[in-house]
């Protein structure tokens, strides 16, 4: 899957050490530091790990176009940082993109490509095509060798028809009739694999996407809160923000909470105030 793997740097180590003075650089990946990395690891130095956000994002192609879905939980390790974030990003009026991985990376890369697509629209005078967005995304991600941790589900409808693609952080892409990404992708894919068929209607498609996202929300710890859906058809896009709210806040006392003195247990140790003179 498209997870960040620092060990890929070490996989290329070995071979001759070419000192920079003799040979001019010719572009491409520079293996100069691989020996150093290996030596550091042997000494016990661990590479820093990256913060990952859990997510369930899905997409499917139906009879009139493409439907994208996402959960709305943003996590910082075990903590929920945002209970209702937006994971479906605008790329073009007819193209939207769900993002999993590092939130900053997905935001930045989709904003950047969206901007490039707009300039391209001005230059060509035509509606943007999904494959254009795909190529711009994959070239950018590849050139950063997987360090931009963005796993995307890109979908849209253009003059050549409906398209759905997945983009992995290292820059590889797939073209699929239905796709899931993120930590909840297995739960969502289980739903898709059993219930997807070609030529779904709009309502059937939305229902299936919501079911898949709910599966991710309830079975994956990294996903949660609400379901966002985006329906893209020829000439029209509907962004259904918070299409389902399956996790309402319950048990809120209308009288408020009143904690009386004595309700908190004591350990029995005396309280020693800090010395103000220090």
């Amino acid at each position, binding site marked *: 899957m498209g997870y960040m793997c620092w060990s890929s740097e070490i996989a290329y180590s070995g071979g001759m050490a070419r000192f920079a003075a003799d040979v001019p650089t010719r572009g491409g990946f520079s293996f100069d530091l691989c020996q150093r990395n290996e030596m550091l690891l042997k000494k016990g130095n661990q590479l820093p790990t990256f913060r990952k956000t859990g997510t369930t994002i899905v997409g499917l192609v139906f009879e009139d176009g493409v439907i994208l879905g996402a959960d709305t939980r943003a996590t910082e390790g075990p903590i929920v940082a945002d209970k209702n974030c937006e994971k479906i990003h605008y790329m073009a009026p007819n193209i939207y993109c769900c993002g999993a991985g590092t939130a900053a990376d997905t935001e930045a890369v989709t*904003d*950047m490509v969206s*901007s490039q697509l*707009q*300039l391209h629209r*001005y*230059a060509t005078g035509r509606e943007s095509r999904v494959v254009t967005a795909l190529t711009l995304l994959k070239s950018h991600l590849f050139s950063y060798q997987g360090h931009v941790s963005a796993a995307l589900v890109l979908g849209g409808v253009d003059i050549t028809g409906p398209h759905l693609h997945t983009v992995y952080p290292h820059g590889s892409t797939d073209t699929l009739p239905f796709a899931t990404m993120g930590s909840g992708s297995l739960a969502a894919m289980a739903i898709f694999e059993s219930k997807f068929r070609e030529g779904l209607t709009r309502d059937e498609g939305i229902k299936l996407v919501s079911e898949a996202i709910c599966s991710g929300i309830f079975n994956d710890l990294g996903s949660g809160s609400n379901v966002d859906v985006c329906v893209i058809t020829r000439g029209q896009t509907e962004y259904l923000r918070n299409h389902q709210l399956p996790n309402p806040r319950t048990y809120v006392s209308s009288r408020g909470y009143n904690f009386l003195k004595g309700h908190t247990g004591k350990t029995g140790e005396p309280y020693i105030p800090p010395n103000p003179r220090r």
Partner: protein
Amino acid sequence: MGDSQYSFSLTTFSPTGKLVQIEHALTAVGSGQTSLGIKAANGVVIATEKKLPSILVDETSVQKIQLMTTNIGVVYSGMGPDSRVLVRKSRKQAQQYFRLYKEPIPVTQLVRETAAVMQEFTQSGGVRPFGVSLLVAGYDDNGPQLYQVDPSGSYFSWKASAMGKNVSNAKTFLEKRYTDDMELDDAVHTAILTLKEGFQGQISGKNIEIGIVGADRKFRVLTPAEIDDYLAEVE
């Protein structure tokens, strides 16, 4: 004239305090095809002659009025290729502004940045000034706006302005006809009449171009069919 001795280098002032290359650039603009702009109460219209060098040229492939953003358009008088470079740079700057501030660029800011680019080319080595004056028309939170940017990099806001060949006649005509409470449709009619003044030959939807932006904030270039409708109304 003593000035001509200083006309070889862009970055050298003449004794009269002029940069002669910029004067020459303005002459290049003055011999370009007429273009004009009018700011109405609820929108802006810009228009230009589209005289092609030969009847064999496919006029559908030529578009002089271009979009810089969804709500800002531009027309030029002078050298077409120079305007294309400026439009390209301005589009990119508008996108960069949006990426930074998450807000569409205001018309004044875009005009400033475009003017700054034009000024750069009057104070650098090895380059020449742009041989175009631009009329930038846009509608943003501050309402409808019309700006003219010159090769020197100076810019002014106008209620109505003209540039190119027939500039003095056109401006006199506009001064007489302009009213502050004009509607966009009236402005389009006035623009057509102004172009008609100095037009050689039969005016039609195929040899003029008109761009408008209204309160909907969507700049668009009128199709030849729409222009013909307006022409029919004018007659």
